[in-house]
């Protein structure tokens, strides 16, 4: 991929990702509403919400928090750009994790106990989801011999065939990343949580919009991650991603919020069985297959 292409891809991601993710959020809200036998909001409601948040008053408990939030947005975008210009998968994962850590630091900057507990839970969620993301990078490496996203998506063979465990594991942690029940511990899309709005409690107006925006960039990046498994067949990829997203909505609407202990334990077990299991099988297959 030459420089011009890279810049174009980066710009396309920066502009199109929020639009796409916002529409996805709109569809999500309509489908959720229908699953609850409600009519639900208009499709563009997430954008209305975002613009309204940007217009609201800026109230700061601690200005340091806002600096950290910009770090969250910036590093999430950097991770996404790195991914969509076909860069190094490991840098993508670490930049994403760094972004989340900035978010956590932002929440710790305020004195509120709700915000602190939310931040602690966000760290636990990171602990639950990061192993699987790193394992999946290893999986891609073992399968394709490269950490470069560009090399992975230009391969002619369908990676889902040899990495089904990785895919399942990623779908599992996607629930954590998308903040869906039963894993919406740190903060939730729904209002009623014991720690109020958890990690986002002490942010207001435009800063909530920044969080939402960063979350949208993150969503598209994670869906891009899943796209890699189907890269040679784009239509199959779109179908698979739609199916995955639908399953996430269904899980959100059919589960209670669980305890952090359960989330951590189950995601590690799932990572170990599906992710590491897949890796071990793949490793032996590639040993046996190639001289």
């Amino acid at each position, binding site marked *: 991929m030459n420089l011009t292409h890279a810049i174009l891809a980066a710009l396309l991601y920066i502009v199109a990702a929020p639009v796409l993710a916002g529409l996805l959020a709109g569809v999500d809200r309509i489908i959720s*509403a*229908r*699953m*609850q*036998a*409600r*009519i639900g909001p208009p499709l563009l409601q997430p954008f209305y919400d975002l613009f309204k948040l940007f217009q609201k008053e800026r109230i700061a408990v601690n200005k340091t928090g806002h600096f950290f939030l910009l770090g969250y947005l910036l590093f999430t975008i950097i991770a996404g750009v790195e991914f969509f210009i076909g860069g190094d998968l490991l840098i993508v994962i670490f930049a994403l994790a760094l972004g989340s850590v900035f978010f956590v630091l932002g929440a710790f900057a305020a004195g509120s106990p709700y915000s602190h507990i939310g931040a602690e839970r966000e760290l636990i969620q990171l602990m639950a989801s990061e192993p699987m993301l790193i394992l999946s990078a290893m999986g891609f490496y073992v399968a394709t011999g490269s950490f470069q996203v560009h090399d992975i998506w230009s391969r002619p063979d369908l990676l889902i065939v040899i990495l089904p465990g990785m895919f399942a594991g990623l779908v599992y942690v996607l629930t954590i990343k998308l903040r869906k029940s039963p894993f919406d511990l740190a903060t939730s899309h729904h209002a009623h949580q014991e720690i109020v709005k958890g990690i986002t409690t002490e942010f207001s107006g435009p800063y909530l919009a920044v969080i939402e925006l960063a979350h949208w960039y993150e969503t598209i990046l994670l869906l891009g991650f899943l796209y890699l498994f189907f890269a040679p067949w784009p239509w199959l990829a779109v179908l698979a991603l739609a199916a995955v997203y639908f399953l996430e909505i*269904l899980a959100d609407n*059919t*589960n209670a919020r669980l305890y952090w202990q359960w989330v951590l334990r189950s995601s590690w077990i799932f990572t170990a069985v599906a992710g590491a299991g897949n890796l071990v099988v793949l490793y032996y297959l590639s040993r046996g297959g190639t001289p």
Partner: protein
Amino acid sequence: MTKHPLKMTKVALENLFQKPATVPYPAVRKPVYAATRGRIAIEEAKCILCLICDKKCPTGAIKVDRPGKTWAIDRLLCIQCGYCVEVCPKKCLGMENLYSPPVSAKAMDVVNVPFTPPPPKPKPPPASATPAATPAPEAGKE
């Protein structure tokens, strides 16, 4: 009954393919019943400005002005108990089954009452009606 952990999935998927239970208010409204306690209405032609509703209203939402010949109600203070309807001697008050429309400012709903006390001869009745409206003798009469 079988015990399996995913019962909600069935409910959610059924809902997804059914008509939603909610209605897009205010474009579509739910039907009201004949008995629904919506708001107090007055047939001003029958009103004799006797002040009983004013005295009996538990929240003091009704204000009757005899000299000014008006009957007024604060819709936001009214609790739709219907007690005024029960005590009205002329049965000119009634409970409508439609709710008051939303308002952005508090205001009294004022109705002009055409009632004129017939000059000399019926002068006593309003005079005697006024003491009758004070709680003690009226409640005994009930």
